[in-house]
Every structure is written in C-alpha cells, then in structure tokens.
C-alpha cells in the first residue's frame, strides 16, 4: 500500500507525461533544462501552496520538458525556505522558489533579516491572486458592515487574523483609518484558527485570505473583500473595499508566484527566457484550469503575472509594510 506514495505517483505520471506530450522545441534548443528543476516551497507539505504547485507544475513541466522536484522548508513564516533558497541553492536557474508574495514579502519587511536581501531574488511568474476578506461567524451579532462600523465606534472590536504581518491585517488597518472604527488585531496563528475564532466568538470577526474562507462554507459570512470579489456567491457577493469606501488600496493579496535568484537571471538570460516563455505558455493551456480545479483550487483566482506585475505588487507590499510596521510589530 505504501508503494502508492504521492511522490512516486507524481514521478510516474511525470515520466508518462514527458513521453506522451512532446515538449515544445524552445525548451530543448538551448540545451536547457537538462535535469530536473528544484523548487523550494517555504510552507508545509499538504498545504495550499503544495496543492497549487502540483497543479501548476503538472502542466508547466510539459512546456519546459523537465520535471519539478519540490522541497518543503516550512518555518518562521516562510523565512526558513527563503534562507535555504538564498543561502544554499546555486543560482543556476535550476532552482526556484514558489512563495506567497503577500505575506512573505511583508514578513521580510517586518523582520528585515540581514541574511538575505529582497533585491537578490525576484518573482517572475504569478500563479494566482487570492484577495483577503472580512467575515463574521454565521451566528455573530454583527451581520453587516454597518453593524461593524457602528460597533467599532462604540468599543474596540477584536479582530482575528492569521498573523499580524499579513496583507489582510493591513486591509483591516486601512479600513479602520477610513471608517474611524477601532480595531484590535488578534493573531490566531493560521487560517483554521482564524475561521474558528470568528465562528465561536473568540473574536468579534476575522480577516483572512479568501480561499480559506470559501472552504469554510456557510459557517461564516463574508462582508467585505480587500480587492475584487472574483467568485461572487462563494464570498456571499461581498463588495470590494475600494467600491464601498472610495479608497484606492491595492489588492491585499495572498499571491503565489515563482521567484528566481537575481544572479541566475543575470548570468543565464537564455535560461531565464525559457522559464518565462514556458511559464506563460502554461497559462495558455486549458489543461491548467482542469488540473487546478481537480486539485481543489479556486479557478477564478488563476491569474498570470510576469516580472513587472510581480515587482509592482512586491513594491506595494514593502511600502505598506513600512507604513504599518509599528502597528504590526508593536515596536
């Protein structure tokens, strides 16, 4: 029974895939890639990133003509994975990191570690965008945004979040600024606990990446999205914050993207070009949508982004991080 383990399974399907689906010519022309590409995933195996990665890699590998080997390095809000990638992996375009641009860049902005710089790597392939949202438990007394704003002007509301340095937390702080309601962020460590906190009344309501909220079904009710509501009913047709309050906040995203060492892109521009082209081609293949849906992703959130889109988002996160740093770190 144990022989049917997942990685062996993936390897077999990879081999089969490589044989049946002939890789496009571009990949082999430059003699790259001639071996598997290692991908560091800075979160736990079996988590959301794992599933997204598998769905995406399944299609991407057919474009690139080689397989991807994930390595999971969770810990310290993603920092372990980045440290391993920046410190131990060769910048030769044979190793990538599949990170979450929102929280992980924000985390870097909070901790400002000396061991690596955000200048030394960059995201070049955005896979999905998952905006943060605000939701209440099904039994909460606060059932509309008006309830929340009114209550927040009378007393300080406790608001659950998965962790302080998270785009959804910034969305909430911005909401407080624009409405004058008082919020006290309570970090509940992880999406599961954040949903539970709102449902059981540990906190007045919560903010979280919407993917997790969609999964919670009718246990919760979404009232506001810190970005565009791309799924409509899945998030109870909640409006976007900019729409309701006239703000111009960038989307507060949990956004998964592949990144590469800056040195690798500089030293091997041809290899990097192949990676970029095949990444883009992956988005044009309808098989991606199928793979994504099959592994339980929210297809509406699939969204291609190249070097420029990623850089703009990263910059926005660094700026917002700097602005709200005192509130998010207690410093």
């Amino acid at each position, binding site marked *: 029974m144990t022989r049917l383990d997942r990685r062996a399974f993936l390897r077999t399907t990879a081999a089969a895939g490589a044989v049946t689906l002939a890789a496009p010519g571009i990949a082999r022309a430059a003699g790259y890639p001639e071996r598997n590409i290692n991908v560091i995933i800075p979160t736990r195996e079996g988590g959301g990133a794992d599933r997204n990665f598998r769905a995406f890699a399944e299609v991407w590998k057919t474009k690139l003509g080689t397989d991807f080997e994930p390595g*999971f390095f969770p810990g310290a809000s993603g*920092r372990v994975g980045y440290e391993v990638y920046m410190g131990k992996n060769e910048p030769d375009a044979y190793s990538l990191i599949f990170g979450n641009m929102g929280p992980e860049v924000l985390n870097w902005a909070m901790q400002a570690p000396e061991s690596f710089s955000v200048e030394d790597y960059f995201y070049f392939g955005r896979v999905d965008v998952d905006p943060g949202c605000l939701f209440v438990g099904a039994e909460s007394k606060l059932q509309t945004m008006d309830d929340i704003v009114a209550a927040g002007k009378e007393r300080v509301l406790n608001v659950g979040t998965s962790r302080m*340095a998270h785009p959804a937390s910034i969305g909430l702080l911005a909401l407080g600024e624009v409405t004058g309601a008082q919020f006290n962020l309570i*970090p509940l*460590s992880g999406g599961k606990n954040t949903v539970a906190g709102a449902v059981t009344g540990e906190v007045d309501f919560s903010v979280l990446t919407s993917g997790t909220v969609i999964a*919670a079904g009718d*246990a919760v009710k979404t009232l506001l999205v810190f970005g565009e509501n791309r799924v409509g009913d899945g998030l109870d047709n909640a409006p976007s914050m900019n729409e309701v309050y006239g703000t111009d906040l960038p989307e507060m995203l949990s956004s998964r993207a592949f990144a590469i060492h800056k040195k690798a892109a500089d030293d091997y521009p041809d290899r990097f070009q192949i990676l970029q082209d095949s990444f883009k081609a992956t988005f044009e293949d309808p098989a991606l949508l199928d793979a994504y849906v099959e592994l339980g992703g929210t297809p509406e959130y699939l969204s291609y982004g190249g070097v420029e889109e990623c850089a703009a988002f990263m910059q926005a996160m660094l700026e917002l991080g700097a602005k709200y740093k005192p509130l998010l770190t207690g410093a």
Partner: protein
Amino acid sequence: MGETASLLVEVFFHTIGFWWVIIPTIFLGLIVGGIPGFSAANTIIILMPLTLAMDVETGIVFMVTLYCAARMGAGIPAILVNIPGTAGAAATPLDGYPMAKAGKGQQALSISFVASCIGGLLTTLIALATMPLLARVGFYMHSVEMIVVMLFGISLIASIAAQDMVKGLIAGFLGLMIGSIGTDVVYATPRGTMGFLELYDGVPLIPALVGLFAVSEAFLIIEKRVIISEDAEPKSPNWHDTFEGVQIALSRWWHIVWTSLIGLVIGVIPGAGASIASFVAYQQSRTYSKTPEKYGTGHPEGLIAPESANNGVTSGTLVPLLVLGIPGGATAAIMLVVMQFHGVGFGPSLFQRQPEVGYGMFMAMAVAYLFMFFTILPLSRYMSHVTTVPTIYLAPLIISFTLVGGFVPREYMFDMYLALAFGVLGYIARRTGYHVAAILIGVILGPLLERYFLLALKKSGGDITVLFSSTLGNILWIALAISLLLPVWFERRRKRQATEVPAE
C-alpha cells in the same frame, strides 16, 4: 427521530461492509502510529493520491480508521520502550512504562487497548447523540477559559515534584522556559532562539519528546540485561496476562468513562488537542484517586486516564468539523481537504444536505473501534516480547529509531541534533534526580498556555483582570483551586487517621 434511527442502523451495517478497508488500515495505523514522528495527519498527506483516488465513502472509512488506529498505535512504544511517538501519547509512559519494566507489559498493553477502545467507542456514541450540544462547547471555551484548562495540566508538575518540591519546580519551570523559545505569538519577535531559524516556531515537540524520554532511557537501560526488572519472573507469552489486563481495565470502567469524557470535551474545542487532554485527564485522575502516591509507579489508572482521554479527543475533533465546518485538529483539517475534493461541503448545513456523510464519519469511527478491539488485543502477547530483547540490541535500536523519528515531522537535520541534545539533558536530569516528565510537561503545555494568555491579554488591551472576567472561567478557577487543595486535605486526613489508629 425514527428516520434518523433507521438511517443510523443503515449506515452502521453499510460501514461494516467496509471491513476489507478497515482491517488493513488498522494495521497500517498501528505501524505509523508506532513510528515516532509519523501520525495519522502526515500519513494521510503522504498517501494523498491513494486517498483521493478512493470514492468518498471508502475515503472516509480509511481516514477515520487510520486516525483511530494511529492514536492507539502511539501508545504501544510509549508503554513498552518509553517512546511516546506523538504529543498525545506523552502522558502514557508515566505509568505504562513502569508497568512494562515490572514485567507487566502485556497487561499494560491490554489495559491501554481496552481503555482506548471503550473510551473511543463510548465518546463516539455520545458525540453522535449530542453533537449539536457538544459543538457549543467551543462557543464558551475561549482563551480565558483555556488558560485555566492548561493550568490543570501544568499543575501536574507540582504533584510530580511532591517528593522534592524545589528540584521538581526547577525541572518544571526549566521546561516552561524551554517551551518559551520561539517567536511570541502576537508580534512574532524571536526569543531565545540562539540564532536558529528552526526554533522560530518554537521547540518542535517530537524531538523534545523522544529525546527526553526515550534517548535518555536508552542510555540508562544498558545497565540491565533486559528492560523488565530481574526480579520480575520470566514468562512465556500467554493469554492469561492479556485477560488479566482486560479485567483490570474493565473493573475500572467508570474511570474509563469519565476520563474519556474529559478527552471528548477538550477535543471539541477547536485548537485544543490530545496532549492537553491526556495531561488534564491524568491530573484529574490523580487528584481524585484514593492512592495518588501510586501514580508514576505503574498504576493502572494512571495508564487508563491518558489513553481513554486521547481517544476521546479523536471523537471530539470530528464534532466541530461536522457541525460548524471548522476542523478541531490537524487530522480533521486534512480530512476537510480530502472531503472537499470529493465535493462534500462542510458547515452547519451539512446534516441537511448530506446526513450520510456526517453520520458515516462517526459510524466509521465506532466500527473501527469495534474491529480494533478484536484485532489488536490478541497481538499484545506478541508485542510485549520487546521488553525481553537484550538491551545491548534494544538500546542502539531505540536511539536510531527515535533520532530518525525526531527528523521525520519537519525533515530538518537540526531536529535530529535537537533530539540528541534533549536526550543528554534528559540523561543528566535522570541521573541527578530531576523529573524528565516535569520538564516535558513544561515544554509541551508551556507554549500553549502562553498563547492563550497573550491572546487574552491582547484582547483586553493588557488588562490582567480579564483572567477573571467570565463566569465559566471563574467556575473553572474554583475547580482548579479545589483540585489543588483537595490532595493536601486528603493527605492531612490520612495522616490524622494514621496517627489516630495506634492511639486507640
């Protein structure tokens, strides 16, 4: 109601039809549960392609059985060789291992199996009957109340430390201090990490657990030829010992009932888990026992309490998952993912839309416990052989096995070195008269206590009186005070009676 009953009967017989899944899964669960570092949750992840390929019913039966069997399997090495493979089994060796050392490994295994099966089965049925009610527990047990619950478990340090209070407290508070390593839960400031990123999320439990208990023990047992003490009469495997264990457990049926209920109630609280439940159950069992001095020396009730409680948790974690749509623990969270893949939508309306899924999960659990009872019990006579393996072979095996187990959950070499470091700490502690169990309780429960404490303080804006701000919390504080004072009072009364007797 009649409709529900007939549905239940139907689901029950339907589930029994899955024996061909249940029986092999029980053995798989026992094995992965027994290997330190593996658990039901990471096994389900590793076997994900297999699980996803099954149809939804088979998948439910498979996952639920694996969960129960792994919980039970973790007790086996905890009893026989002092290796608790998961945090949930950390209280099991306190009395289980001394029994094994005294040559009663078979009885201990039977007791643990009976307590687990009955505790698990009973709480499953109670959960099934009172699900909507039980799910409300989470609505009242917030961070303030959880602080008190954690203190119940932590107060065990004081009882363990009874013979030499100062040294006991040093051990317990050292454990709490080690448990404070890692970022603070609110602002994520790294603390005491000695520069290791691997410690940012706190001290990983499995390396601490196996290091303190098993590695240090391995260095001690080499003084003896075999684990069981020389004066324990050598015996060939026999049914008699197995049945003696069953009898010991059954005669304490009431103990199984109430300790498993503690597990059930703690299990339904989202975020609270088997480690809390087993220590709280052990502490409560000891507090209200007539013979508290026997705990820690191989007392059957000290084994029953954590084992029935941690299986109570297993049933409990399903309740918030099914009623509220929020998983109560790591394994339940994985189940949620797998079920969503099959298009099962969780949340309060699950029982209207797909009642067979909700009832099916509990029924699968009940049936799994029934099957387990009859498949595992006969094995105890063979398993207990481990205690008769010469220590010259066993000690190196235990060390390699546990260091490897320390590595498995996160796959960092660092964790292996950490397990060795904890082994050395545990060895020094044992040789110089400090209780490793006290250190361990601190390491396991300390971070949880701190988490609830900081959340409560953050919620109240730093106002310490928040600790006494809820009615339920205050009732729990009183219960805590009683359970701390009662043993003292019992002790006095016993001494008084003892002095009165000769006076007559």
